[in-house]
């Protein structure tokens, strides 16, 4: 049975936040004044207009290690590749996903599911780069992660970073040729607080350190050197001032998930990833443009089923709560949610009960922004020829043998950028003097509403 745990609990616990539209309309209804209702309609329309003009943001839920499509969004229960995973129905008619994602199954009506992603990279690091930037690694230029492009394309009006990576492991989002100021700010489990934000001395000592002592050194260093040294070259003092401002910013409260009720915390799950997702929702609400939250540990070369089921349980609670919360806070229309990893896992199960790397047909979930709701794109072959997996037949590992209506990684990026209101064909000049588009893929119109 598929029940929406978040929605049920919302009704019971009354946690659901009141949107401006709902509050104004309900107030008017309670008063019984039809003219007030019209007035409220007008006000709420204005509020919606504000929402619409709000720049779009990106929530990048990164499943590091390569989640198995067969144990998450594309089960083939009963076939020879299906393994032990069972399929359950979802809030999209006739669409089944893994029984390890029951809460997500209820929220799937908000999302687009792509089951036919293909990539040309089978190594974790290279494939992660590919998925995060939309480009295959090129030693001559380092491409920006999509979150960096989003930030680059919008003005900065925050005292806290606009691009944040929560729980990053080896390869957090980097800005590449856009410069490190667009790198993701890295932070750990929100329960631990933000690293390096608290001064190690009292305010008086900090004022002395960053005031007269530092100024004496800076004044001396600038003397006789490159004109306008800080602004034209180092940005060292500017960054110091930004860091000091951030250390005392009220906006930091967006990181503080304890400000949410116990019920909300519980819905996201008592895990670092769950807390990361909740912090991400709060940050997006504050105006942060891109938050990456990572759930590591999907690389199941051994004991695939147990490992994937364990990770899926963490994902399920957090993802369902995230979609629900973004929807409840009216953030989903302005936020694109991506959930996926660098590749999928092989249809065949290896001798250690594991599945290996598989870029020839895997799943990602998208929601919000301009993406269709309750839509599934592409499919994988439920019963591929076993002979194709024999070593001698590696040359036949063509995606067309395994997936239909395939979507490439560049196409995925072009479509996400389009959904965020960014023209993916705009060219930026790279440091090597070579103009590059944000993405060299094409928009997949079927994915958009």
């Amino acid at each position, binding site marked *: 049975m598929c029940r929406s745990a978040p929605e049920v609990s919302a009704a019971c616990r009354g946690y659901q936040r009141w949107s401006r539209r709902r509050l104004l309309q309900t107030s008017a209804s309670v008063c019984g004044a039809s003219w007030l209702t019209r007035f409220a309609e007008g006000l709420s329309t204005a509020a919606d207009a504000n929402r619409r003009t709000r720049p779009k943001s990106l929530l990048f839920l990164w499943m590091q290690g390569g989640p198995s499509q067969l144990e998450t969004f594309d089960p083939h229960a009963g076939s020879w590749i299906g393994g032990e995973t069972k399929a359950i129905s979802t809030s999209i008619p006739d669409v089944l996903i893994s029984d390890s994602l029951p809460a997500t199954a209820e929220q799937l009506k908000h999302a687009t599911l792509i089951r036919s992603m293909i990539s040309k990279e089978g190594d974790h690091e290279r494939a992660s780069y590919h998925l995060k930037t939309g480009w295959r690694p090129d030693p001559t230029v380092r491409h920006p992660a999509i979150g960096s492009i989003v930030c680059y394309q919008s003005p900065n009006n925050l005292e806290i970073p606009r691009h944040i990576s929560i729980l990053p492991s080896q390869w957090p989002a980097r800005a590449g040729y856009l410069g490190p100021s667009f790198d993701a700010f890295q932070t750990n489990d929100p329960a631990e607080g933000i690293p390096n934000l608290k001064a190690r001395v009292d305010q008086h000592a900090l004022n002395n350190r960053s005031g007269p*002592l530092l100024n004496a050194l800076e004044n001396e260093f600038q003397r*006789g050197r490159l004109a306008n040294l800080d602004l034209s070259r180092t940005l*060292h003092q500017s960054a110091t001032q930004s860091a000091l401002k951030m250390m005392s910013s009220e906006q930091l409260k967006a990181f503080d998930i304890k400000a949410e009720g116990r019920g909300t915390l519980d819905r996201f799950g008592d895990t670092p990833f769950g807390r990361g997702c909740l912090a991400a929702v709060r940050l997006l609400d504050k105006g942060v443009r891109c938050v990456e939250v990572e759930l590591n540990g999907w690389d199941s070369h051994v004991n695939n089923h147990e490992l994937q089921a364990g990770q899926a349980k963490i994902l399920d609670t957090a993802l369902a709560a995230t979609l629900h919360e973004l929807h409840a806070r009216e953030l989903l229309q302005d936020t694109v949610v991506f959930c996926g990893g660098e590749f999928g896992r092989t249809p065949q199960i290896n001798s250690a009960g594991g599945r290996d790397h598989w870029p020839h047909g895997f799943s990602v979930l998208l929601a919000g922004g301009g993406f269709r709701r309750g839509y599934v794109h592409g499919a994988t072959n439920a019963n591929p020829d076993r002979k194709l997996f024999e070593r001698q037949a590696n040359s036949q590992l063509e995606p067309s043998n395994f997936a239909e209506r395939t979507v490439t990684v560049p196409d995925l990026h072009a479509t996400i950028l389009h959904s965020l209101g960014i023209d993916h064909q705009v060219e930026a000049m790279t440091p090597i003097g070579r103009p590059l588009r944000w993405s060299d893929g094409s928009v997949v119109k079927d994915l958009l509403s």
Partner: protein
Amino acid sequence: MRRIARWLLMTSALFVAFVIVATTLNGRPEIDVHRVQDRRVDSDFEETLRTANIQLSDMARAATVELAPPADNLAIARRLSLALVGSGLSLEEIRALESIPADKQIDWWTDYLLSDQRWADYFAERFSRAYVGTNDGPFLLFRKRKLNTWLAEQFRDEEVGYDQIVRAMLSSEGLWTDTPQVNFVTATMDAANEGRGDPIRLAGRTSRAFLAQRIDCLQCHDDFLDELHFGDSENPIGGTQQHFHELAAFFAGTALADPVFRGIKDDGQVYKFKYLGDSEPEEVQPAVPFQSELLPVEGKPRKRLAEWVTHRENRAFSRATVNRVWALLFSRALVEPVDNIPLDGSVPAVLDTLANDFSEHGFDLRRLIRLIAGLDAFQRDSRAEFKVTTEHENAWAVFPITQLRPEQVAGRLFQACKLTALDSSSSIFTRLKAFGDSQNFLKRFGDRGEDEFQSEAVTVTQRLVMMNGNLVAERTKVDLVNNAGTRIASLVADDQCAIELIFLSVLNRTPTSPEQIEFMKYLDGKMRNTRQRAFADICWAMINSTEFSWNH
């Protein structure tokens, strides 16, 4: 009985630890200030240096910019130390340097660093990034640490020329554990290549790292931007897909042997590729994109390629190396980017002067480093009485201001908090702790990866790490062991003298008068603990200054 056994075990462990510490402490040699080699007796060396200096002066003249005055020796020594071992000078080293006659200080210091194991290790890591990148690489098949150790051994061996190192990497066969140079090949053997070296990635790496030719775009199409030319300025040949894949064809036979414990073997496989617009793949024979007359006719493909790449008359090879070493010393390449020097374009004359000297003197890296370190441009100040602009920097009329790489910031930080050099004679525990702390620091601070010379600006994250991070907090708090500032403050009663010593230790210079006045004012009336905390504040300010994190 168990209690006695436990007691014996703990006693033994303590004894072993004591022996290790005692050994390393006793083994710490004094700095030999008498070993000053006079490199200038070599007339070729002097002639090359003179010509290069004239050419650099001509550059400045052509750009109509004034030349900055010479920097003081301590500033030059700091640049050298950052470039060759990735850290600043210790107070102990500064005192040794000061005991040398001024006109011999830089030569002595260069020799001192080049004879230090730290130099070989540091350069090995810098060069290996160009050879194999910073990826973890394929599991089991790739051992980066083995490759780095092997490289460091080659750099330390004065009899081994750089051309020999490159030939070994390009042509060797064997197992990646006992023939570490083959890791150059195995770095590309990931799951997608099914036990074979990736000819495409190897061709790209070879071209960029050894020849400073970025021809990667030719992998997919001919050069339609008219930017890639082979041949020379009189007979330019446009870059084509064929050029790239003919180079890749040299690596087509690179495969895992059967049985696999024999490592990498050449199995003679033919390279096939379907060119853009063609319907069928075709066999591609190995060929080089320029100076084909230097390519040996006989031999295994990779061996032929290695001979061609490192041929004395292959100007691209010596230019590529000079440009990389220049970039390591100045933190900025002579021709940017560091791995793309046009064959037919005009390059600064000094590049060819140094490249000629390099190829004519056995591809001797030490000699090349001594030459660059001896250049007037390297020894110029980064400040001047006139208004300094980027034109001055571009013409090497002033020493350029560049951001230290993350590992240099970490190295400088560790060294700034110690009075003696953090080197191979330091205790094993000190070095292990420094290594662990350094990895943690770099994880937060960020690592530039392969793009080591790409100019960047400071980020808020980096500033937060330096202002509030664990490492800086540990090294600046009142601590007699981990903070040189505390030790100086507790041993030196005179504030003025203590300030000067801390300046030397952290920033490797003496304070100016305004700085001295400001810091004396800050210390005024502070006694005992408050005085020590005030010195901690001073150390923090120095470590957080622009000067600490930027080369100048």
